[in-house]
């Protein structure tokens, strides 16, 4: 049996089910309680679970992220939201220096089972401090796991696994996907971290991507199919740990790859994946790996400017044709 719900609702269901299952799961963040989150994800949670478990924090990102680390070291499983992933800049120390490193620096003694949910991404005309995709910052930091689901089913299943995981997990959620309604299973399920998903099979080229760009890649693949090019869309779903086996399997089949993400191109995680493929799968490749990313600019406000700053289906089509020399 399946049901059709929005991605934001699927994220809410994941947290709700885990809170019912485990009394140590709590929610912290700005406007998560009375208001039920700015996207309505936790409406009614505080009435149901109480103020001790659904905590409206002050605007103190560094403070409450640090508190989540301390609580997690005591066995609480905080699911913390920064209203926008851009705000990580004021909470960088508790996440990048404390949560990520605590296990290693204590020689394996400390466990920090927290999830940091980060609404991200461009397209809402929110300008440069509310629109970034900062996957690279988290993927770069040893000790963090990173998920970036694209569908309602993946978002729910992965978030449930993330909450149960004993490592700090960064959950990157594209804001423009929240309202998208999709079928998900009625019954309870989880999706393991570190397993990519082929969203469309193809034999001519692999499009490696994640989050919102999955939909643009699928749109591009449709257009390409009309021209006789069969593109495989590999949705990574989890960025760390990376499902390298899935990449090898797909690239060994298609022998051509592009990596698509909404990040600033320079130093992006897309660049990292591109480098790994170039280093280790060179013999499989018929052409150099191409990255299709945002520009190396500040995310602009005006629609005509912002739309320049993330890959659209036509950019993906053009990149595929360039790689295939068509």
């Amino acid at each position, binding site marked *: 049996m399946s049901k059709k719900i929005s991605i934001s609702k699927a994220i809410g269901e994941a947290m709700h089910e885990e809170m019912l299952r485990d009394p140590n799961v709590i929610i912290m963040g700005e406007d998560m309680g009375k208001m039920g989150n700015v996207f309505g994800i936790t409406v009614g949670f505080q009435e149901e679970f109480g103020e001790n478990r659904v905590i409206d924090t002050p605007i103190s990102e560094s403070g409450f992220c640090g508190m989540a680390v*301390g609580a997690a*070291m005591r066995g609480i499983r905080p699911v913390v939201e920064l209203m926008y992933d851009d705000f990580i800049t004021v909470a960088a120390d508790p996440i990048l220096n404390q949560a990520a490193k605590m*296990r290693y620096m204590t020689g394996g003694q400390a466990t920090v089972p927290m999830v940091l949910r980060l609404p991200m991404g461009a397209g809402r005309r929110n300008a440069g401090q509310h629109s970034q995709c900062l996957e690279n910052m988290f993927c770069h930091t040893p000790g963090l796991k990173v998920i970036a689901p694209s569908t309602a089913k993946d978002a729910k299943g992965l978030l449930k696994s993330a909450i149960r995981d004993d490592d700090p997990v960064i959950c990157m959620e594209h804001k423009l996907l929240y309202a998208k309604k999709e079928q998900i299973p009625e019954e309870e399920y989880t999706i393991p971290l570190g397993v990519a998903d082929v969203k469309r099979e193809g034999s001519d080229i692999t499009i490696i991507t994640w989050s919102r760009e999955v939909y643009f890649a699928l749109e591009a693949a449709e257009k390409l199919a009309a021209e006789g090019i069969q593109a495989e869309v590999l949705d990574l779903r989890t960025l760390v740990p*990376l499902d390298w086996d899935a990449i090898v399997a797909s690239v060994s089949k298609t022998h051509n790859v592009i990596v698509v993400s909404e990040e600033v191109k320079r130093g992006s995680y897309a660049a990292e994946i591109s480098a790994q493929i170039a280093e280790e799968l060179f013999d499989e490749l018929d052409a150099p790996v191409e990255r299709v990313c945002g520009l190396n600019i500040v995310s602009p406000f005006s629609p005509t400017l912002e739309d320049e700053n993330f890959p659209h289906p036509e950019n993906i089509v053009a990149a595929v044709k360039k790689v295939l020399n068509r």
Partner: protein
Amino acid sequence: MNMYQTMLRIRAFETKAAECFTKGMLAGNIHLCIGQEAVPTGACMALEPDDYMTSTHRGHGHCIAKGASLDKMLAELFGKETGYCKGKGGSMHIADVAGLHSLGANGIVGAGIPIAAGSALASKIYGDKHVTLCFFGDSASNQGTFHEAVNMAAAWKLPVVFLCENNNYGVSVNIHSVTNTDTIAVRAKAYDIPGKTVDGNDPVVVYEAVKKAVDYAREGNGPSIVECMTFRHQGHYCGDPANYRPASYMEEAHEKDAIPNMRKRLLENGVATEEELQAIEAAVQEELEAAYVFADTSAYPNPAEATTDVYSSDNERSVVR
């Protein structure tokens, strides 16, 4: 007597660590708390054994007062596999999470303050009766984390005691040249919580002030700030000549040095005889020598250990890529 012994163990440990550092046996940096021994000694005595604690970059004394093994501490400073953190943290990161409920020292000034408040939040959620003691220095009180964490702890009445070790210097900068208030404890008024400045050179005074704050927290009344005025005899790190301080600082520090003063007091009040004190002193030296041998003869970690303990699950795959 217990206090005297604890203070002595801290000083002996620090003295030994400095000696090893000067001989080039220790890598990196160490921050010594010689002169500040009375603060952790009195403060940790006010805790129950299963209460929690966060420490700082100048944290050896906190760990010893909480009950840490000198063997495993010195081995960690040596970067040996037998250290508290298997040689992965070093001097600034000694922790004993499950055993001593010591949630770790921290290399980032002020970072332990929200972690302590978070531990106290966990106690509130669990409904347990543990109190968390949060050590921080005078300069950490100027980090944003201090304001954010104390504010939340006060708003939610969390069972935490914020203990400021005020040695007047943040590395080279005098606290009064960067802070407008006479004390750090006066900031408690801003959060409507108790705040008190006490003589940090007397472990009994520290104990009494912290005990009051611990009881207050355990009874569900929320956090307090206890500020202990103390002296850092050495520079910021081992090797720092500290020539930014006036000579009067060290004159006062020696005059108020808790260890000789406590020794005198014990003798004058007839609590201990000279022989008894000498026996304690000899036992501490012996313990230190044994710790030194343990640390020195322990093995360095196998290089293959570099890639373990990054993740609790899926470690290998997450480290390879």
